[in-house]
């Protein structure tokens, strides 16, 4: 595969990583939690998307929306059952992390029971159409994935900047006690943040599923996206996007020039290398902990 083609694939993959990483960063910034159920929200999105497109023959956009809703609700369920009760009793953060791991196991097994253990391919809704941008051939599927991701990221930025809820989420992420003192119901904001992060992961799941396959163990891709969040700068959505693209491109290139068996190792190796040089990630800054 020529270099330009690889870059296109890398950027496409990177865009999906970015969506997963943004959601992960969001929860970390608002609640300070490393939510290990997050990759499974992505996996569930891929499975739901598979059912919507293959079984019910509906369009991919509908699949994205349906998965967004489904994973968002799942994230809300996890927050209400595993995270909020521990926070209410002033439990330790580590217990919330363990609880999220527990939920990850539940979701993985549930998916295996519902959809079976075999990986399944999405119906090819693009039929392998290939367009040309300049002299570079680009698969319509990749264009769809890239543009959907970009639309979502732009929509997210607008949401944070211009809506009351978006403003409240940012305030809560900056300083949750102060947000409470300005009248913000931080408990609701935390729930909304979980819903949003799960939703983004679910939508990314459809995109990844259509790119590769849908399977109950798709969470491993999601785990790689977490390293994207680290590369970009933990807790910063802009960093998550940057980290996602960097990871996608480097992973694809190294898959060709090094070895495709080591993709997972490459993802984490890159993260370690970046952190050695820039301990707060590429865009991250030392944050005053409140």
């Amino acid at each position, binding site marked *: 595969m020529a270099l330009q083609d690889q870059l296109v694939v890398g950027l496409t993959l990177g865009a999906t990583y970015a969506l997963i990483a943004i959601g992960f960063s969001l929860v970390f910034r608002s609640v300070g939690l490393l939510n290990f159920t997050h990759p499974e929200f992505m996996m569930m999105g891929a499975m739901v998307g598979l059912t919507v497109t293959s079984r019910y023959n509906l369009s991919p956009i509908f699949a994205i929306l349906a998965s967004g809703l489904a994973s968002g609700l799942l994230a809300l369920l996890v927050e209400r059952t595993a995270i909020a009760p521990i926070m209410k009793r002033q439990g330790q953060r580590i217990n919330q992390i363990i609880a999220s791991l527990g939920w990850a196991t539940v979701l993985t097994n549930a998916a295996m029971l519902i959809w079976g253990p075999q990986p399944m391919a999405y119906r090819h809704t693009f039929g392998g159409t290939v367009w040309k941008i300049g002299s570079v051939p680009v698969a319509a599927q990749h264009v769809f994935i890239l543009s959907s991701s970009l639309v979502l990221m732009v929509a997210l930025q607008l949401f944070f900047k211009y809506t*009351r809820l978006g*403003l*409240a989420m*940012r*305030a809560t*992420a*900056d*300083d949750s*006690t*102060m*947000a*409470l*003192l*300005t*009248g*913000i*119901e931080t408990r609701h904001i935390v729930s909304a943040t979980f819903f949003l992060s799960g939703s983004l992961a679910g939508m990314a799941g459809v995109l990844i599923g259509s790119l590769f396959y849908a399977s109950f163990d798709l969470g491993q891709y999601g785990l790689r996206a977490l390293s994207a969040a680290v590369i970009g700068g933990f807790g910063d959505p802009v960093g998550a996007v940057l980290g996602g693209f960097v990871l996608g491109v480097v992973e694809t290139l190294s898959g060709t020039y090094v070895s495709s068996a080591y993709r997972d190792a490459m993802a984490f190796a890159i993260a370690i290398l970046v952190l050695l040089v820039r301990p707060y990630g590429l865009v991250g800054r030392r944050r*005053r902990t*409140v």
Partner: protein
Amino acid sequence: MLKLDKVVVGYAAAPVLHAVSLEINRGEAVALIGANGAGKTTALRTITGLLKPRAGRVCLDDQDISGIHPPKGVQMGIAMVPEGRRIFPTMTVRENLLVGAYTGWQKRIVETRLRRVFEFLPRLFDLKDRMGGSLSGGEQQLLALGRALMSEPRVLLLDEPSMGLAPIMIKQIFERLAVLKQAGMTILMVEQNAAMALTVTDRGYVLENGVIVASGPSATLLHTPELKKAYLGG
């Protein structure tokens, strides 16, 4: 209007405030002064509902608000300018102010309030698109004050407004507070800088190790021996 009635409150085992009673009438500016660790911030946290008293009550207009859920307190008209400013660093000045108006969110109302705050604190208008985290200490103090005013409070709580500020900035802040008081705002100010606090307030209470050791009109309070003892030890 705002009353603490024999409040006992603390964090772990030992209480920080021991049966503290104080009262702020409508339109008054009251100072709560004392050395570091006396329990001043604890008192404010109890009023806003972040802490629940073990004994005694907090009352607003004779309504018991002890341990109130803080957002409810904001709706009832209590606004806090906290210690260390605590402005939102990743948001612009304008956005910080908007968050202050979170409870009364209708577009026309919010825009009107924003304009009024900019008129009252013109420096904030010049800074309106600057990131909160990039402001100086004095500018952050103005922002924290503006943010509190955006909720159109009935009672304004200030925790150490002069801390860490240059003298010229302190003068500016207190000048604005004096104007607020003239306009009828009810103010409770917690301060280590006794002299400064007692110039803009009507009355004061002196807190030492969680106990009120003196109270009275600000002008006379400054010269009482209890005040000197509270700061220097006796």
